[in-house]
């Protein structure tokens, strides 16, 4: 059985109501039909897979996780999670999933261990068993010494661990993590990676959204790259990297509009693609950094001065830029 399956999934949020102020000019009309957050998305996640959803802020990652965790209504299409339909059997879906939210939202009226014990009882687990599991999870996640502390006494990283422990108390088949490492310091991030690897090793399906390329590359079996609600690419990190333009990405920032330099660059030998975004010139070069002097000359010939130069090897990042024309972060 597939852990997750979506068919022609679509989510449209109603356009925000625009209030007209007296005396102010009429505001621009909102986009008719609302804001499309997810657009005809077909996804399949296998059982036991560590699946990454990669995309920039606003790509639709949180909406997708919201739909799969029954917190966002579907506009059209269908989504199945662990064999249950999110729209018609939401309670059954919730029984089978654990959710680690983007921002920790522990129950602040309860202590650390109580957070786990009460959560387990919401899933019908008897109190004694809940207490045993809670203690075990706190130990596994390295916050057992904080069991009786107030939630407010935990650091950001510890709160995130508490959220993971909470998501695991009812032994879910699929664990969702929405950008779990945002706001964590590098050390906390690395230790979270360890925890996630361990969970994956136990055969659990993990679905994680992130906008960190490195994280996706390191942890995930397969990756879906989405932007503006659409699936752009779906494969293993290795295969995706192989699909990345085999060329080095050269980014040159000028002190003004770069479009003239882009025209010149496209005519150059060894350039597969070039485009200008305001003062930023992006060139995919088959000759690595060799073309940099020529690019600088091309700009200077039109009176532009170079402010910054950046070279990137073929990677998920350069693939993403070639797919979307945008950076991830």
């Amino acid at each position, binding site marked *: 059985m597939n852990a997750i399956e979506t068919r022609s999934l679509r989510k449209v*949020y109603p356009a925000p109501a625009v209030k007209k102020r007296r005396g102010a000019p009429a505001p621009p009309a909102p986009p008719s039909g609302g804001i499309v957050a997810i657009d005809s998305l077909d996804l399949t996640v296998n059982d036991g897979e560590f699946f990454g959803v990669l995309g920039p802020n606003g790509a639709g990652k949180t909406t997708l996780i*919201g739909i799969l*965790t*029954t*917190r*966002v*209504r579907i506009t059209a299409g269908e989504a199945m999670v*662990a064999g249950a339909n999110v729209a018609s059997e*939401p*309670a*059954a879906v*919730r*029984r*089978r*999933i654990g*959710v680690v*939210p983007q*921002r920790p*939202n*522990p*129950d*602040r*009226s*309860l202590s650390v261990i109580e*957070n786990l014990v*009460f*959560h387990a*009882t*919401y*899933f*019908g687990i008897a109190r004694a068993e809940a207490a045993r599991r809670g203690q075990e999870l706190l130990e596994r996640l390295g916050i057992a010494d904080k069991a009786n502390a107030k939630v407010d006494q935990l650091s950001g990283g510890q709160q995130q661990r508490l959220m993971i422990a*909470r998501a695991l108390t*009812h*032994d*879910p*088949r699929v664990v969702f993590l929405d950008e779990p490492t945002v706001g964590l310091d590098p050390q906390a991030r690395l230790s979270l990676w360890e925890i996630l690897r361990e969970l994956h090793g136990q*055969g*659990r399906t993990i679905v994680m959204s992130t906008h960190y390329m490195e994280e996706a590359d390191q942890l995930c079996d397969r990756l879906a790259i989405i932007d503006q609600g659409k699936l752009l690419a779906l494969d293993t990190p290795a295969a995706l990297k192989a699909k990345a333009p085999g060329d080095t990405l050269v980014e040159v920032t000028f002190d003004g509009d770069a479009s003239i330099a882009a025209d010149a660059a496209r005519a150059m030998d060894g350039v597969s693609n070039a485009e200008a975004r305001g003062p930023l010139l992006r060139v995919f070069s088959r000759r690595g950094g060799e073309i940099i002097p020529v690019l600088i000359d091309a700009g200077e010939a039109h009176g532009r001065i170079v402010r910054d130069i950046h070279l990137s090897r073929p990677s998920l990042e350069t693939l993403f830029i070639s797919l979307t024309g945008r950076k991830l972060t």
Partner: protein
Amino acid sequence: MTAESLAPVAPSRVFAAILLRDLTVARRELPYFLVRTALQPILFVVVFGFLLPKMGMIPRGYSTTMLPGVVALSLTLSAIQSVALPMMQDFGFTKEIEDRLLSPVPIHLVAVEKVVSGVLQGVVAALFVLPVARLIMGPIAGLSFANAPLLLAVTVLGGAAFSAMGLYLGTGIAPQQIGLMFSVIVAPMIMFGCTYYPWAGLDHVPVMKWLVLINPLVYVSEGMRAALTPGLPHMPIPALLAALVVLTVFFMWVGLRAFDKRAMS
């Protein structure tokens, strides 16, 4: 791990677990809770039930009129706050309620649980204020507990109507407008809720007598009057019970709709 995760959980068990969570938290915050909900009615009792009668500015029998109103006020204020305040906080800022919204039951059960917990907290506040008021005001002529079934019915229905109203206010109003909620909705409701005077007394101002009928508190005050001081004039009992049932159903309906909008996007 899979066998267990597939078994459905009895909704009643989940409901009981969530209710236990709310009661555990409420018990810990009991002193704050009582100050928040009972202080205002008790202060009224001190001034209108003790000081002014002592000064001879209010006839002594007034405490009989006022006591049921004060009990009604404690019940309704605490019921409304016990639901509205956490809802505003949870949905507006902390998102703490998410863990319950992710429990394996229909999400309406989470809202209904809050209303039930609001009723229980209202009862606790009323049970606290009643003896305190009696202590401050001295013996109260005509006070009777003989009408226990009616007292219970008014307490439960009144608590339910106001908890459901709290559900609506807590989910339907933007958190920034919480101050406005108290000054524009709650304060006038208290003043025109027949808490400090009987509804029959409004015979002197007929327009008011009919206008106040839109105020849900009127039915709880009059119901408490009918139950606690049956010798004094009060609204017909079937009418006020029917009104409380209608109000509970109405606020539950609009409250659940508003809750849905906040709980799912």
